[in-house]
């Protein structure tokens, strides 16, 4: 039986290894997130960032290693929906909203509440939930588009909608994969504000290639390369690191 780690981290990954056809997408990756912390993860393409999120959310099963959510929950034993309901929300790298549903309905589905077939069959939106959706619509700036089909949104708006869905879920841990790809500078700024406002209340892991953006939000930065952590620390420290330079310049 696997033992829960002693440290009380919000998220604790140890020695995760994922092998795809002999290729190690993750190679003994160890990483932690403190409660309320905003952690930025950077790394070149193919470093394994998305794969790491896949492991945390149960999409990919690692070949070895452990993943604990708090000291109670062994993520490797849960199914994807169970992991979500344990309090982990995710924004995908490729924005995926429900194109055939309206903006409002997208948020409604993300609403915390019973997830079973039976419960959703009978679910009605309470005034409190209605207000919550209105609030989130306000935050993500899509109030006017609430009755539009999500597929009619622009790329940036879809990104926002997906962030809005994360907010609706109100998870303890947010995994945000490349949130600002395809956004205008102005939108990027607002995203940074939003993420910072969530910090403290939620633990957040942000994966991003946009260095300006990372610099604007990061306290602690972890650099991934070839499936493992090669550097860690604040932005300045990381950027001076010889290996990091090599990896990025070597590209």
């Amino acid at each position, binding site marked *: 039986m696997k033992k829960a780690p002693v440290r009380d981290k919000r998220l604790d990954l140890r020695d995760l290894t994922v092998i795809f056809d002999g290729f190690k997408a993750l190679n003994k990756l160890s990483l932690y997130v403190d409660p309320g912390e905003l952690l930025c993860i950077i790394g070149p393409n193919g470093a394994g960032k998305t794969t790491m999120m896949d492991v945390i959310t149960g999409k990919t099963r690692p070949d070895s290693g452990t993943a604990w959510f708090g000291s109670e929950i062994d993520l490797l034993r849960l199914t994807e*929906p169970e992991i979500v309901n344990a309090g982990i*929300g995710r924004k995908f790298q*490729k924005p995926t*909203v429900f*194109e055939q549903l*309206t903006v409002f309905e997208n948020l409604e589905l993300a609403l915390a509440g019973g997830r*079973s077939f039976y419960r959703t069959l009978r679910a009605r939106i309470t005034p409190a939930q209605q207000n919550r959706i209105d609030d989130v619509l306000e935050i993500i700036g899509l109030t006017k588009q609430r*009755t539009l089909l999500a597929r009619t949104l622009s*790329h940036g708006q879809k990104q926002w909608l997906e962030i809005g869905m994360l907010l609706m879920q109100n998870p303890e841990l947010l995994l945000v994969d490349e949130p600002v790809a395809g956004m205008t500078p102005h939108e990027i700024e607002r995203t940074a504000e939003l993420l910072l406002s969530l910090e403290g209340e939620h633990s957040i892991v942000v994966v991003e290639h946009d260095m300006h953006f990372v610099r604007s939000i990061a306290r602690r930065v972890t650099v991934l390369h070839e499936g493992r952590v090669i550097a860690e620390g604040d932005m300045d420290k990381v950027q001076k690191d010889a290996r990091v330079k090599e990896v990025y310049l070597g590209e």
Partner: protein
Amino acid sequence: MVRFGNSIAGRDRGGAWFLGILTLIAIAVPVLNILVPPSSTFHLSAYGIALIGKYLCYGMLALALDLIWGFCGILSLGHAAFFALGGYAMGMYLMREIGPRGVYGNPILPDFMVFLNWKSLPWFWHGFNHFLFAAAMVVAVPALLALVFGWFAFRSRVTGVYFSIITQALTYALMLAFFRNNMGFGGNNGFTDFKDILGFDLHSDGTHAVLLVITAVALGASYLACRAIVDSRAGRVIRAIRDAESRTRFLGYPVESFKLWLFVFSGIIAGIAGALYVPQIGIINPSEFAPINSIEAVIWVAVGGRGTLYGAIAGAVLVNYAKTYLTGAFPEVWLYALGALFVLVTRYLPRGIIGLLPSKDKVVPKAALLGESHEESARSRQAARS
């Protein structure tokens, strides 16, 4: 309280039309049959009633298919299996109801068992002399098959064409099984020569008229039930699954169980449709399980317009009307026509004939059906990054 949830479906105008027409049929058919004298051109013959009854049963099957295909993206190529199982359950009741009036006069054993020299009733035939038991089986047997099969299939994440292929194999296997004499379901010939149902003579127009009204009611009720599901939050989850299955999973919805229950419910509707079909048509045999039947049912839905419920029903009626006409008038043309229908509808009419109507009830927007822009968005992301 404002409910935006319904904003796409709008007020169900198409559904209102459909229910109106259905009511009209339920009233007009008995009137035209019983009150209009046979000499009049407006008289509806027993054959006419049976034909309409058949169309309505097929409409129910189409409804069941549309619920899972149109709304959840699950294309079952074996739905006729549920239809046939419901039909067989009803057929077993009708066989036992014949009692000693069979050719061999055996009060317990149906003729084909006497013919096979069987001495006693197989265990699974017990209870079918009670109508209520048979009615329960009409629901339970398809539900059980859907539950077991769906559990295995969905659990292992069999999706898309894989699922279609496996359901097709399922109905094919069932067909082979039912062809066997020693299965105890009458082999090749199936069940026929029914005498009465609940004591009412199956050869009388009156009984047929009543059966038709019951079928209409069942179809209307199924429609309303499906509509209720589709318009609930569960319905939105189901559509979410259709559009982005794994995303739905990452919102915490147990996708497999949604699919499973929907599949079971759909199987039950198909089963009831089959049970209503058998007394009106007067025969059930293993060819009902033939894979082509299931695929034909899919084309009804596609012709009518999937994701609308009433469109599927309309498609079933239209295609079958064409089939009745063509197989009578130009038998060799029918398969060409059916084949062309498959090709043309998928190629040119992705939203079916309902999509041709000027209406606001378009549940599935056209662009969504025309191989949507996943690639598109991936490309723009790529562009944004570089």
